[in-house]
């Protein structure tokens, strides 16, 4: 019972850690997509190029949140 309680506490901390890891990427993806939408609205003919770059930026930013997610299960 003691061990189970300790494990639950550790998992709880891990969850908080994952939540903290998701803050930065959340803000980052918001900025990237917001600016991409603005760019596409200002210059619709460049939409294809902007979209490709946007996905690249999202992929780089999102990786941090996903690493946090994987680490949660490794604890």
């Amino acid at each position, binding site marked *: 019972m003691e061990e189970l309680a300790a494990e639950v506490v550790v998992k709880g901390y891990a969850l908080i850690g994952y939540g903290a890891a998701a803050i930065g990427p959340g803000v980052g993806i918001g900025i990237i997509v917001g600016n991409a939408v603005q760019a596409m609205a200002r210059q619709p003919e460049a939409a*294809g*190029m902007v979209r*490709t770059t946007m*996905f*690249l930026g*999202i*992929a*780089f930013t*999102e*990786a941090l949140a*996903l*690493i946090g*997610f*994987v680490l949660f*299960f490794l604890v």
Partner: protein
Amino acid sequence: MIVAAESCDIEGGIVCTPSNVNELFVFKPIFYIGEIGISRTHFLIIFAALLVVIFLFAGLRKKSVVPSKIQSVVESLVTLIREDIAMNVIGKGGEAYVPYLLSLFMFILVGNLFEVTPLINFPITSRIAIPLLLSLITYVLFLVAGIRKQGKEYFTHLIWPPGLPVALKPLVGLIEFASTLIVRPVSLAVRLFANLVAGHLMLSLLLVSGYFFIYQNGVWPVPGKIPIGVAWYTFGLAIYGFEIVVSILQAYIFTLLSAVYIQTSLHPEH
């Protein structure tokens, strides 16, 4: 998962945790060849590869000027890889990498879409072996491309961009070394892997808990639980649609990043 839910105690309240997350991803071996157990995952990998080959072969068997339905689908996929990824990102010399990028894209796409295919419902890319292998192939490919293009200077350019002040060399060298040779392949593999793991986990938890709240251990539970189950189930179906988008997007991103890495080896000035 359903088996785990069946064996759960109803009397103990609504909280019921599965024993281990591995039971969603590791299947029991069907038979053994020597020490290696062959499970459902192996068959799915071979099935995905066969599906890609058959699809491409069927699309390009009869090349007609007015394309048939399947031919036009294959043609638009090839155009996507060739124009949008190879030509647009790699630029000069990108033609040579079209076959690799196309097969990479198709295999990951089929593997990812297994997640939302009824009766299969298991993305093969959610086992780390497959994303890791694919990202190592890309890793070797862009290193070889760089060495062939620039010779021994490739490694010095890799670590110190041309025109760097001497004072900054140790710091930048360390950062560039880690980011190019270590972080690149690992993040490429982990991105695909973690996205699919998260998706599979979310789908199975939501759909199974929906099932579990409505109908468990062969009895209908108290009526109060049914709305909770219906809500979970609806939410699960919404996530199902979202996962289809994620599957396609992740295959695209993996291919795009492979092309970007190859491009940085071919044209160091950028």
